[in-house]
């Protein structure tokens, strides 16, 4: 399958080959997005399938006001957030009553450990990766979706705002909160690793 730009016209007309090319181009990023937001492989697969089933139905009416990628990510993010809501109904209440996260303001850093000097191998270990996943999964759905779109999928602040249907200022506030929380979690983890490394050296 070639990587030539997709033809919106063909997609809207229901061209199967063009749709298959769209699936080939976007299935991996959509799967990853679902996996990072839901933190569950089965849920990620459901998100993936639902996203393309919905896209197939909605394509004839797609006006192309946003890019195809943004549009697909919007469907996928909504699916992923819906999965989370179904699994944890209590999360819905928090999210819909003004998002308790935002009312707290920006979290004040507690962990002041400079772990930047730790060996690269330590930072790339599978244990570190598991800790990073745990930390990201610990973010609220509102913070997690911003963080996943911006830092893991590499979307700009503007594109992230477009996908989520919120103002850019909201994306920026959530992003700084998400990043500071992750920094806090990784600092606690690496702080312990540093103590261990220096204890081993003695």
């Amino acid at each position: 399958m070639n990587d030539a730009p997709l033809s919106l016209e063909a997609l809207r007309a229901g061209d199967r080959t063009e749709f298959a090319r769209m699936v080939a181009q976007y299935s991996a990023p959509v799967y990853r997005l679902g996996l990072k937001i839901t933190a569950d492989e089965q849920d990620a697969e459901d998100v993936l399938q639902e996203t393309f089933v919905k896209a197939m139905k909605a394509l004839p009416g797609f006006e192309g006001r946003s890019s195809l990628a943004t549009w697909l990510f919007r469907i996928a993010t909504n699916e992923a957030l819906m999965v989370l809501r179904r699994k944890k109904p209590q999360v819905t209440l928090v999210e819909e009553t003004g998002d308790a996260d935002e009312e707290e303001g920006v979290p004040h850093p507690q962990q002041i450990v400079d772990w930047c000097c730790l060996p690269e191998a330590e930072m790339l270990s599978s244990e570190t990766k598991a800790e990073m996943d745990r930390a990201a999964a610990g973010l609220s759905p509102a913070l997690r979706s911003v963080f996943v779109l911006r830092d893991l999928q590499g979307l700009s602040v503007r594109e992230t705002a477009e996908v989520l249907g919120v103002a850019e200022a909201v994306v920026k506030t959530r992003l700084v909160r998400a990043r500071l929380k992750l920094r806090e979690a990784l600092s606690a983890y690496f702080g312990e690793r540093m103590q261990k490394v220096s204890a081993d050296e003695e």
Partner: protein
Amino acid sequence: MKNKGHCEDLLASLSDYVDGTLDGQLCEALEQHLQSCHNCTVVVNTLRRTVELYQQEELDAMPEAVHQRLLHRLHLDDFLHEG
């Protein structure tokens, strides 16, 4: 963070700072503060490293079986071995 009030004002702009998109004046003010505040310097460095670690994280590959089931669900099985 000894100078708590000042540090908190700066916290909100840290994300833009590590992305290199902070407005000029604020950026200058932040850098000036960093010269005299060790704790903020540690926070900025570890925040930047945190973001880098996530951004560099290896992509999770989509399992082949997941791909097959997706194409099947979309009635596109005939495209399975293309691409």
